[in-house]
């Protein structure tokens, strides 16, 4: 076929396909180029979740609401857990919001590559889009459930201060931790299927290691630095502090938590970037 062939446009991209270096890490530029795909995958997760469910958005409200009621009765009333002065329903609901965003995101991201194997083995795109989508999709549920929190705060007469402007920081920290853990688990789950069984267990442990049913202040001072290694401690305490001025957060402890989240995200990106080129062969 040597018939009429025009010159190649100057912009024709040349792709060189070869084995990449051992520690190439995650290609963020490439992920950015595929942001539309990230958007569509997120949108698919949201659509599918809301499409054939009886209550649709209702679940996003009912889940934290019912959990909060049970917690309020058992931990608030029967056990008399201290709340650093705020009403127990607001105290636990404020914690459940970021927790459910984290839990839903990590459990779906962790198994996402295996669930999406038909994509992984058939088409090229930056693989990080797959675990990223369910984490971002969780933001819609989060937003819906947040409206209920606003109602509760009005009902209990809880008034946020200037600190509320710091809320996005804790939300981003939450997403970073979800993504860091999600990348680790998703990459490992491709090769080692036991990870899939470990995820629910890991999340349950983290739930009790996070100040959701109780305040962080109940942990003995000597153990505090260790306790704050869990980034969800900072996220949850940060949400409380930002929304209704819960207990003050020590900068040193906050740095431990934030540092841990960043470390997990960075190592997650490296390990994922290293393993992603063989996903299609292994999954």
């Amino acid at each position: 076929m040597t018939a009429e062939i025009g010159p190649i446009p100057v912009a024709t991209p040349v792709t060189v396909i070869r084995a990449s270096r051992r520690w190439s890490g995650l290609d963020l530029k490439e992920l950015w180029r595929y942001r539309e795909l990230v958007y569509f995958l997120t949108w698919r997760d949201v659509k599918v979740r809301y499409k054939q469910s009886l209550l649709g958005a209702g679940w996003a409200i009912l889940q934290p609401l019912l959990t909060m009621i049970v917690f309020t009765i058992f931990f608030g009333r029967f056990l008399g857990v201290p709340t650093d002065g705020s009403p127990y329903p607001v105290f636990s609901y404020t914690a459940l919001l970021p927790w459910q965003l984290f839990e839903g995101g990590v459990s779906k991201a962790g198994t996402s590559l295996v669930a999406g194997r038909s994509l992984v083995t058939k088409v090229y795109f930056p693989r990080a889009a797959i675990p990223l989508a369910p984490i971002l999709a969780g933001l819609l549920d989060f937003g819906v459930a947040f409206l209920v929190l606003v109602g509760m705060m009005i009902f209990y007469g809880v008034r946020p201060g200037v600190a509320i402007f710091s809320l996005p920081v804790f939300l981003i920290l939450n997403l970073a931790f979800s993504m860091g853990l999600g990348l680790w688990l998703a990459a490992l789950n491709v090769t080692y299927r036991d990870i899939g069984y470990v995820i629910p267990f890991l999340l349950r442990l983290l739930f009790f290691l996070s100040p959701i049913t109780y305040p962080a202040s109940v942990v003995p001072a000597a153990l505090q630095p260790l306790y704050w290694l869990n980034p969800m401690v900072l996220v949850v305490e940060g949400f409380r502090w930002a929304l209704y001025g819960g207990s003050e957060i020590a900068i040193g402890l906050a740095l431990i938590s934030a540092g841990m989240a960043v470390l997990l995200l960075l190592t997650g990106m490296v390990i994922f970037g290293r393993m992603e080129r063989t996903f299609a062969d292994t999954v």
Partner: protein
Amino acid sequence: MTRQLHSPSIESELAIQVEDLGKRYQLGETLGGYGTLRDALARTAGRARSKLSPNSGAPAEHQAATIWALRHVSFNVHRGQVLGIIGRNGAGKSTLLKLLARVTEPTEGQARVMGRVGSLLEVGTGFHPELSGRENIYLNGAILGMPRREIQTKFDEIVGFAEISEFIDTPVKRYSSGMYLRLAFSVAAHLDPEILVVDEVLAVGDAEFQRKCLGKMGDVARQGRTILFVSHNMSAIQRLTEECLVIDRGNVVLRARSEEAVDFYLTAGLSQHGVKRWEAETKPAAGPFSPMVLQVLGPEGRPADRVSAVMPFRVEFEYSLREAVSGLRVGIYLTTSKGEPVFTSFDTDDPERFVQLPARPAGRYRSTCQIPGTFLNEGRFVVGVNASSFRIRSYFTDEYALSFQVDGTGAPGTHWPEARSGPVRPGLTWSVERLEP
């Protein structure tokens, strides 16, 4: 804009340049599924041990557990060329396409790809049953790398080509399989990449749909786009491509004009003559069915590469079942050396036999097909085999397992020395009556 015909620089005319490309897989660990953390820990411990005692055999073991699916593959594809890739199952065709589509990375060598690559490794990738046709078009388009604006401008065209406009807002789980396929192919076909990689999409769908797909691919080719086309459909290969690569055991064994390549693949080169034995490494690793020997036997009962057109002969297929299989049917495909199908026949086509054999217990079997004399035309034919349970599972397929020659001596009408077209030359009953004086 200056328009150059027959561009002087060879560089700018190339669409794909493959140099010494190779892909190694690790057996067991990767091909045979996934490991568990415990295995990995055990392996790491084993490696540590072997480092401490250098005499242990662990490194050799490690070497043996890998396989080169593709090695030392080099070729160029010019812009606008439609290149066919043929080879039997497991030869490395799909690995090559996966490497070029960047689904997986090569172990060695490199490939330079000039322009956007669209892959049709499997149509409908990422389709979600709960989403509507409209939603799936956007999702699938994004997965295939189409910007949203491009999907919007081509939306009507995509829907029109798929002929599903009245169902566009229905969830695709309610689609018939034909509609589903048409929509999936339509999205992919409107991708408009500079280089299109197509693998076996035509193996599915009805004849009308296949015709349409082939037409669309022809259009794409005429627009000067480069196409790599993998198929087992030899007539489609010959219609669409001018040149083909024949791949066997991870190597390019021939690059030639399609006609020659198909002939080489089906007869001279790869199919065996008279008898085909499956060695351990070419047998499917998993599943209850294991092929053993396929042979063409002449009237005297000996394996034959040549049979007479007038004498009956038989095709025997020996296989073993590792476990009982219910509803099994084992059969043959007969194809001409040009790839035109002649017939497909199964050992339980007789409904009575099918009822008698609801399940075959584990063991070794032989299915024999008697082929009557005075039936086939002269020429070379290819026998393929298939073992499947209808609509449940296909256990084994080798579409071009062995070939044999039919000698036309004495066939009906051979007293006229002319070639008769068509794969069969049956001895039919004629009567001639004089109706009027």
